[in-house]
């Protein structure tokens, strides 16, 4: 068998190799440095706040861990005081910082393409020798990488910040609790990337900066809320315990009371509680109907357990934190890449 080599026909596409990607480095920096400075400022200000409020908290927590013997009443009191002092602060801080990813999506992602349309400059940018698809890919990729790295670094700092409150085992501040989970590990960069991607797609679809920013906020907040409320608790089949106290740091999904192996009805519970002048509004929410005769140190659930009820708790254990982080990180990354891919596809076909 003879091999026959044909000289390649002189062809425009071979003589015109695409311009090197690195040229977009300066372009992206020059056109988005204000937005990137904004990202730096937001993360920087939040980081300063975390360090300033975190340092006293860490020294207070050092006193908790240094207390010996740990099971003594005095040490329990120190730990309780610590949780009472800092848990609220940490949860409020975490709540405020939920806004950071979506702000980045709205202020960096949404204007990226929307401003080109609003100002008409896409007619300049997309008629240069650097093709529009590559121009879009380069900008999206560079900004996405920078934003994700910044978010990952901030997530590490936030992990340091919340560590004492998680360690002290306050009731609502386990590692899986909604406002803490998504500011740590791979979840924070993944949520930030998703916000950026949603912003970019909103920009090419809506082509106006302000409406695209609003759309980004609405879509991202809805996604984050639905994930925290409905999706994340089911990444793995939840565990069930009949213990009176749910395991430390667990994310409680559902709690109910059983009597004789069957779910206890509200009427049944109220009959039992009438003796101590309490009324159950739900199986976990109680309301005094008179001067409560319940002994001080006992809560109504304890009282019910003493009177033949069993508490059933469905929960996710704190030990699943990293599994859940990787699951959430993976699907958010896949979603972000899909959204960015759609954005590039829309740019190819635009106008």
């Amino acid at each position, binding site marked *: 068998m003879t091999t026959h080599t044909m000289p390649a026909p002189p062809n*425009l*596409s071979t003589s*015109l190799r*695409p*311009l090197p990607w690195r*040229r*977009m480095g*300066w*372009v992206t920096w*020059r*056109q988005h440095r204000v937005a990137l400075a904004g990202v730096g400022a937001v993360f920087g200000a939040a980081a300063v706040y975390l360090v300033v409020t975190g340092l006293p908290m860490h020294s207070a927590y050092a006193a908790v861990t240094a207390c010996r013997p740990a099971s003594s009443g005095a040490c329990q009191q120190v730990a309780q005081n610590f949780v009472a002092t800092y848990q609220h602060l940490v949860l409020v801080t975490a709540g405020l910082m939920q806004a950071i990813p979506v702000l980045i999506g709205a202020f960096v992602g949404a204007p990226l393409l929307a401003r080109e349309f609003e*100002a*008409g*400059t*896409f*007619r*300049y*940018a*997309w*008629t*240069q*020798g*650097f*093709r529009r698809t590559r*121009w879009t890919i380069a900008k999206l990729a560079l900004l996405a990488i920078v934003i994700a790295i910044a978010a990952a670094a901030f997530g590490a700092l936030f992990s340091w910040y919340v560590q004492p409150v998680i360690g002290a085992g306050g009731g609502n501040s386990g590692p899986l609790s909604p406002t803490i989970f998504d500011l740590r590990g791979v979840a924070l960069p993944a949520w930030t990337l998703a916000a950026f991607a949603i912003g970019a797609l909103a920009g090419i679809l809506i082509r106006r900066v302000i409406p695209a920013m609003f759309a980004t906020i609405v879509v991202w907040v809805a996604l984050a809320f639905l994930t925290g409320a409905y999706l994340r608790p089911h990444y793995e089949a939840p565990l069930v315990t009949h213990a009176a106290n749910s395991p430390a740091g667990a994310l409680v999904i559902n709690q109910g009371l059983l009597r004789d192996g069957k779910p206890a009805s509200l009427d049944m519970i109220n009959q039992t509680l009438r003796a101590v002048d309490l009324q159950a509004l739900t199986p976990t929410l109680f309301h005094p109907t008179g001067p409560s005769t319940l002994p001080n140190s006992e809560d109504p659930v304890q009282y019910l357990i003493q009177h033949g009820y069993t508490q059933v708790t469905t929960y996710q254990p704190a030990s699943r934190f990293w599994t859940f982080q990787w699951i959430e990180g993976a699907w958010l990354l896949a979603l972000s890449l899909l959204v960015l891919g759609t954005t590039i596809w829309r740019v190819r*076909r635009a*106008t």
Partner: protein
Amino acid sequence: MNIIEARGLGKRYGGSWALHECTLAIPAGHVVALVGPNGAGKTTLLNIAVGLSVPSAGAVTVIGGRPAGSPAALDAIAFVAQDTPLYKNLSVADLLRLTRNLNRGFDGEYANARLGELGIPRDRKAGDLSGGQQTQVALTLALARHPKLLVLDEPMAMLDPLARHDFMAAVMTAVADDGVSVVLSSHVLAELERVADYLVLLSSGSVQVAGEVEDLLASHRVLTGPASEADSCAERLNVVHARRGEAQAHLLVRINGATDALPHGWDSHQVSLEELTLAYLRAPGTAALPGPTRTATAVASEVAQ
């Protein structure tokens, strides 16, 4: 080589066609005036040619067969869009650097020299320049790429008469120095008349007239004669537009060289490009197209009125 070649080109926005069955072949080496009323499809045609828009039907090639929007086409076309959009927050120097990064061959020396001549400060933000200066900056960015085809969409809309003159002078210098082909669109023919040597007249989405200005002027005449003979005269000639008074009629006719004899008692005058264009715009049913597609449909309806 054709600088722009369109076959059966159509572009639909929603239910209506901005361009329809548009067929066109513009040879290289001309300054082409793309003229037509507002909404005729000039911007649509140019956007497709520079690769910003994708046609709904047909195809366009540029600079000798490169598909519009292809890398080879983007490389060789410079486009200055309507209202000359620039990044307003970038300095002139940054705009130069931006354009250099986004293109293969960018002649920074040329650009700096030109901006120096124009007295445009390089450290000024584009948004702080006057409309005329912004247009000149946009033109400089385009010319410094040394394109084979320069496309200018309504470039002079923002300019005062002096700036228009300077702008056209800059374009003509580039034509003389680089041999660049230029396509300029405008709905005001007067500003192109002195510079264009090729005319494309678009009307309601298709090409009505296309040809070298010299040929068009040579092949059209205004005939002036008694109004009573206008009808019989019109039957024998390709009348583009007829204007008649009490006694005299003025017929703008397209003549076929020697075969058309001038009727007795009629005077023949040269026609100006503006007169010619206006006549065709007033008679949307007529067309004057070059080559095999020549369709001398001097519709009599205009005359019969």
